[in-house]
């Protein structure tokens, strides 16, 4: 009896193993079929320096999953067709944890797609990332990217990778029908935006929908707002010094930014649900109130990726939802833009990896994804007419018109601060009316490792 059960179990396990591997075998055989096609000249392309590297494989490991992963794979097709190099993408929601484990365990991928430069910086310090400037030349990188981007990719003196996807955070989304009906204009300055908010309150609307809940990352929406405000009231040098830890959190500069935040966030008439609504609403749900009919709130500040969170069957970006640039506070600071991006850093040195990096530095490498919408390319050679909608093009134009571009500060700060005390400290500050701000700010400062 026991033996029978064991046999059945074993057979089941083997079958399961075979079934779960079936997919890959198919993929392999179809790859084999492709290579059996009439020979293509794989040496004539801009990526491999005239070498034929066909048949080799490059593994890319990143945090894009589901649809994003499929779109990333699609956008690698032009490279695969030109060079015969197989690009295998693997995505994981636990990228942040796994990439460290793999690097320290001696099994790094060929290329890692870092959503946060802070994480990349940790690995650069550990010596796990190669310098792309050495491979591709600084001239080529400067030609492909704005200086702001190449400055950001410079970590510990090396270019730690190439930028692939840009995220623009200085955007305010609004409900178009109400704006048209009431004749509200797009605010050009911070004061106009506050006046507009007052007008909305007077007309019986709630101006703002804000939500900062994001499970383990709760608080990042608050830090994004503060970073945008910092860029609008201080010169970029102050912002950079703040990121570097030279300007403290417990400083007049940062406290001034908190005052601007408090003026909107802690005005119960301005914000849907007040403090409680802010801390308990998941950031992805916070856009819904402005997208339904009739809207429960009229404005929502969030990065361009929020388009992916619009409620299904509800409003569409374009007819119902518009966006405007989060207006400047001090005109002397120009039109700063806060953003983020995905940095693709090489962790192995092989000719085919170098070729992929060269490709990823071109706008062409983003085309397939960009045409699906909701994507902004940081490359200089990406023409605006590739963007599928006016919304995408408008966002790309805001990026192009920026006088200053700065990266999300919390992504650049050491993890203990940028993904730790800054988030939790600001959540405590928003949550509790009687919070001891001095102590919160001091504890953020003292958490610098």
């Amino acid at each position, binding site marked *: 009896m026991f033996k029978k059960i064991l046999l059945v179990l*074993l057979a089941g*396990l*083997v079958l399961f*193993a*075979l079934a779960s*591997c079936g997919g*890959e*075998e198919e993929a392999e055989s179809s790859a084999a079929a492709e290579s059996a096609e009439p020979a293509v000249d794989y040496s004539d392309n801009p990526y491999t320096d005239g070498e034929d590297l066909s048949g080799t494989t490059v593994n890319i490991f990143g945090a894009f999953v589901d649809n994003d992963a499929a779109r990333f794979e699609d956008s690698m097709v032009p490279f695969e067709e030109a060079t015969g190099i197989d690009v295998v993408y693997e995505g994981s929601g636990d990228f*942040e*944890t796994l990439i*460290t484990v793999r690097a320290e365990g001696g099994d790094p991928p060929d290329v890692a797609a870092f959503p946060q430069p802070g*994480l990349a*910086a*940790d*690995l*650069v*310090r*550990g*010596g*796990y990332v190669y310098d792309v400037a050495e491979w591709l030349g600084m001239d080529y990188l400067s030609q492909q990217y704005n200086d702001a981007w190449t400055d950001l990719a410079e970590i510990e003196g090396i270019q730690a990778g190439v930028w692939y996807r840009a995220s623009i955070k200085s955007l305010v989304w609004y409900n178009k029908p109400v704006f048209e009906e009431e004749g509200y204009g797009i605010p050009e300055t911070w004061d106009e935006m506050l006046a507009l908010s007052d007008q909305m309150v007077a007309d019986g609307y709630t101006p703002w*929908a804000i*939500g900062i809940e994001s*499970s*383990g990352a*709760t608080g990042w929406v608050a830090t994004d707002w503060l970073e945008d405000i910092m860029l609008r009231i201080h010169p970029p040098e102050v912002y950079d010094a703040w990121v570097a830890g030279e300007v403290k959190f417990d400083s007049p500069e940062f406290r001034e930014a908190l005052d601007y935040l408090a003026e909107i966030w802690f005005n119960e008439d301005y914000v*849907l*649900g007040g403090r*409680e*609504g802010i*801390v*308990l*609403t998941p950031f992805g*749900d*916070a856009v*819904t*109130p402005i997208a*339904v009919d009739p809207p*429960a*709130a009229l404005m929502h500040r969030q990065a361009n990726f929020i388009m992916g969170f619009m409620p299904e069957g509800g409003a569409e970006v374009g007819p119902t939802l518009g966006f405007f640039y989060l207006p400047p506070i001090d005109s002397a600071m120009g039109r700063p833009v806060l953003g983020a991006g995905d940095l693709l850093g090489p962790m192995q040195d092989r000719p085919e990896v170098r070729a992929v990096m060269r490709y990823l530095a071109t706008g062409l490498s983003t085309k397939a994804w960009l045409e699906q919408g909701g994507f902004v390319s940081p490359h200089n050679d990406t023409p605006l007419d590739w963007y599928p909608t006016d919304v995408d093009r408008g966002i790309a134009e805001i990026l192009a018109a920026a006088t200053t571009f700065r990266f999300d500060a919390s992504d650049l700060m*050491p*993890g*203990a601060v940028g*993904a*730790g005390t800054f988030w*939790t400290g600001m*959540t*405590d500050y928003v*949550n509790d009316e009687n919070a001891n701000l001095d102590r919160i700010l001091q*504890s953020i400062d003292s958490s610098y*490792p």
Partner: protein
Amino acid sequence: MSDIEESVLGRRTIQTALSILAAAALIIIFVWSFSFMRNEEAPKALIAVVALVVGIGGIWALFITVDNLVSQMPVRVRDFLRPYVFITPAFLVLLVYIIYPTIRTIYVSFFDYTRGSGAPVNFGLQNYLVILSDPKLLVAFRNNLLWLILVPAFAVSFGLVIAVLVDRIKWESFAKSLIFMPMAISFVGASVIWRFVYYRSLWGSQIGLLNAIVVGLGGDPVGWLRIEPWNNIFLIIIMIWLQTGFAMVILSSAVKGVPASLLEAARIDGAGEVRIFFQVIIPYVASTILTVTTTIVILVLKVFDVVFVMTSGQFNTDVVANMMYNQMFKAGQYGRGAALAVILFIAVIPIMVRNIRSMNQA
């Protein structure tokens, strides 16, 4: 006569030699399969088959061969060696997966060690000083203590009361399976369900169960998860909901073991049902209650999932295990995370010692 002796001796030698050969062959197979399974080129299906055959069949073969080898030895040596043959593999696994990581964690907790820094440096107490001076640790200790007292107390009480009550009804098994059902749900799954129970909509109708009831009764929606310190209780309720079923099932079988004659005698002596519950049933199942309680206490000491999913420790609901996770994986401060793990480890030791002692007595 001597011929027979010689042939027996010869057979023995051959058998011993065969056993040694088999053991050597097994070791070679193990080493080969290990390197084979690490080979990325090999087809995945073949790797899976090799892992199954070598993993399951190999261990069986190893046990049989080594046991055979021991059987060749003189009786005294045989009796001495045999237990070790069976315990060594298990002990090796423990050594690699539990004892080594424990020692390594204690070691790392005394050094500066962060993500990407390569190796631990600067021996000292710095991690402990930083952690112990964090006011949030005190809050986490308080919360852990709340969990530690409330979850076992309520889960065991409810479990016992339900076990006694359903003992007398017709649809006992149905009632029991209803209460046992949450046990089948993972902690994360249960937390996701309870997030909806406590959910507070920003606008429109309240889809959260509790807020729908509150609004239905004419009240204003409540942000349950941020009312301090009650939010801790709301999280603890989830764990009680999960663990009551476990306590009930174990205690139910103990309650069924209370002899009917004992209960009848108590009734004849004029004891009421309440008195029977406290003075007959509880003393009779006391040892089971103790076992269930310690099991739940150990589980609660490690509580992490529920807090992580529900609040991530915001609004003063943090617990030590969640702080450790944040230091380790969010901040990349391995040293500090290890120090927190050591603190948690020290807190668990007394209960583990108690548990092992009572296990040895039983």
